[in-house]
């Protein structure tokens, strides 16, 4: 029987192209306070996978036009359940989430449930070509809702199954704005920032690693309160501390211009938001440029704000370059368009992605509630790196996922140290205003 084919959308092809820069996986780990009922989870997963064919499809590269081919699968291809102890738990989680699913695989996501001491840890990886962080959060929420519904006897599994097309991002725009947005051919990746995160040279023995650092609830609460006092977002504050720390750690000259792209969820432009369409990628980015580091963190914050305000005031934020990509994929056969885009696209050496808030009440599995967790983007290959942020239970988990060795791990840990030192310095310098 001939296998069903699914069109490879623009972002599927783009994420496939990004295989040159990272491992194309998106990761999530949720630590529950009680065990998850694996039998129910299996039922929910099978029903969900059935509804979203791209999740059980293999990707086929083709000279003219690549495509997905729907494949047979079993739940064991997706779900692994393992009993472990506290000593080995973290190592096993790390081993699971740092694996990469080949595009030829029959399933494009994998889940592991680790049972340890009467609680479960839920870990999931998914091919970035299927969906991005925004829809990953949606997927986890639906998984929880469907699990809870099934627990109460409701067998209907709900998940969005609409179009995966990139052009949904124009649905909120009207008239002239829509026309203008569809002509934003400007290549915003062409910002030549040569600053890189100092890591050791690539070597064959490098392995994928997800380095984590946590900002505790007390620090986060002060940090947020200061942000509120100044009328700035956590994203602005984190970007400030991140850039300030990069100047310090990377020893960039203080007057150098540093540009960092921040990932932007393009669902803000979609009518219906995250519930609209199907599971896919809708991520753009805004550039944040500072013309040198500030003498203090507050000075750097002013510089960051001056840059991000331009993007925030721009009603087309994140929509640049999409028409250019569409044009390239339309006028050329795939093989040529990929080469052309590769020539014109400059992958940012340093990036930041604020995945945002993971709300525990939306991620419960029956009586099991997540007490900790994080999400992170793909594992970057040197010299690329990205800081990802997840907020949960009033804590921020910072992650840097890279392919490297033990020395790189130490460098990243040192950077986290500088980052946290600067967070605390910023709090110390500004906490006085909270008492007024």
């Amino acid at each position: 029987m001939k296998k069903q084919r699914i069109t490879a959308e623009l972002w599927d092809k783009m994420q496939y192209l990004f295989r040159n820069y990272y491992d194309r996986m998106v990761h999530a780990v949720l630590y529950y306070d009680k065990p998850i009922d694996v039998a129910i989870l299996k039922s929910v997963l099978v029903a969900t996978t059935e509804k979203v064919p791209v999740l059980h499809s293999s990707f086929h590269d083709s000279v003219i036009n690549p495509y997905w081919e729907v494949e047979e699968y079993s739940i064991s291809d997706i779900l692994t359940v393992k009993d472990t102890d506290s000593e080995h738990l973290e190592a096993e989680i790390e081993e699971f989430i740092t694996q990469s699913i080949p595009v030829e695989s029959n399933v494009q996501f994998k889940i592991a449930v680790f049972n340890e001491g009467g609680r479960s840890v839920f870990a999931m990886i998914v091919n970035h070509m299927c969906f991005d962080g925004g829809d990953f959060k949606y997927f986890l929420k639906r998984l929880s809702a469907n699990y809870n519904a099934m627990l109460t006897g409701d067998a209907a599994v709900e998940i969005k199954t609409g179009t995966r097309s990139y052009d949904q991002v124009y649905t909120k725009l009207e008239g002239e704005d829509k026309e203008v947005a569809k002509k934003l051919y400007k290549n915003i990746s062409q910002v030549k920032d040569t600053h890189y995160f100092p890591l050791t040279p690539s070597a064959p023995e490098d392995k994928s690693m997800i380095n984590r650092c946590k900002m505790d609830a007390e620090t986060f609460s002060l940090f947020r309160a200061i942000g509120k006092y100044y009328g700035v977002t956590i994203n602005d504050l984190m970007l400030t501390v991140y850039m300030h720390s990069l100047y310090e750690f990377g020893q960039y000259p203080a007057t150098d211009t540093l540009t960092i792209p921040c990932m932007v969820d393009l669902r803000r432009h979609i009518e219906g938001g995250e519930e609209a369409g199907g599971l896919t990628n809708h991520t753009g980015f805004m550039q944040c440029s500072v013309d040198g580091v500030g003498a203090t963190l507050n000075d750097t914050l002013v510089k960051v704000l001056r840059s991000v305000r331009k993007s925030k005031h721009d009603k087309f934020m994140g929509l640049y370059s999409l028409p250019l990509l569409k044009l390239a994929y339309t006028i050329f056969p795939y093989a040529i368009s990929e080469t052309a885009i590769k020539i014109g696209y400059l992958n940012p050496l340093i990036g930041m992605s604020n995945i945002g808030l993971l709300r525990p009440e939306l991620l419960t599995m029956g009586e099991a509630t997540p007490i900790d967790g994080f999400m992170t983007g793909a594992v970057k290959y040197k010299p690329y790196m990205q800081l990802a942020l997840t907020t949960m239970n009033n804590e921020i988990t910072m992650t840097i996922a890279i392919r490297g060795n033990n020395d790189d791990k130490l460098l990243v840990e040192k950077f986290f140290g500088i980052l946290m030192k600067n967070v605390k310095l910023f709090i110390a310098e500004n906490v006085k205003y909270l008492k007024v």
Partner: protein
Amino acid sequence: MKERFKSYLEAAFRKIRPTKAAMELRLETLTKLEEAAQDYRIKGMTDDEAIYRLCIDSLGDFDAKLQEFDRSLTEVPKKNNQKRYIAMGAIGAVAVIVALYLVLSITGAFAWSVSWLLPLGAIVAAVVAADVVLLLKGFKSDKFLVARLFNVATVILVFVFMYLCIRLSVHPRFDWYIFLCMVPAAGIMDIAIGFVTKSKLTVPEIFVWAMLTSVMLYVMLGVAAVMPWHPGWLLPALTAICIVAVVAVLLISHSKKAKKDKQLFLDSTKNQVDEEYYTKW
């Protein structure tokens, strides 16, 4: 603070007409003022009155600006005259050239077989003008690749035109020499741009140009029997030797400079004598 800014702006905008554009400007100015206040607060200012004053002062002579803004709404925007003049000039030039071409050909002043060079010349002139504009734009945006490629194409076009003019009017014996001259000419134009734009490839390009020019010269002088083929071949050979010698000198001086810089670096860092070494732990 926001309410104070709003009150200030409401009062200020009462002095001009309540148009839609004025409403947009008022909102824009409010955002600007709020952002300025935010910046001052982050920089450490705590006195609200001082922040308010500074923000209002940053608007400058706001009443005058508003009057100017209001006036600009009533004046019919001037059309882009420059573009219109260029377009009109181009159409006029085409009309004159076509007319001249027809008149000269019909009256028999020039044969049809030659007069077509007139419109062709006009096209070449237009391409040269476009080339100059592209180069100037390249200088402004600091992007020269397209301008340089276009420049080479322009030189080729000019030389083809020159060849046609000479071929159809004078019929000299060695009119094809013009194509041999075209290569060094394109090279020298590109080298000139390379010098102005401080391109790193200019020096190697000079060597290539010198070699090509000597070969072309050797062929031209040989064919014209001005210089015998032997020992005329010494011209490109000597050029090659000179290039190798210059490259060697450049490499040696570069290596010496690098060595000197390294020594200076070592002297300023690792070899620096620190008296405290003996006593400080």
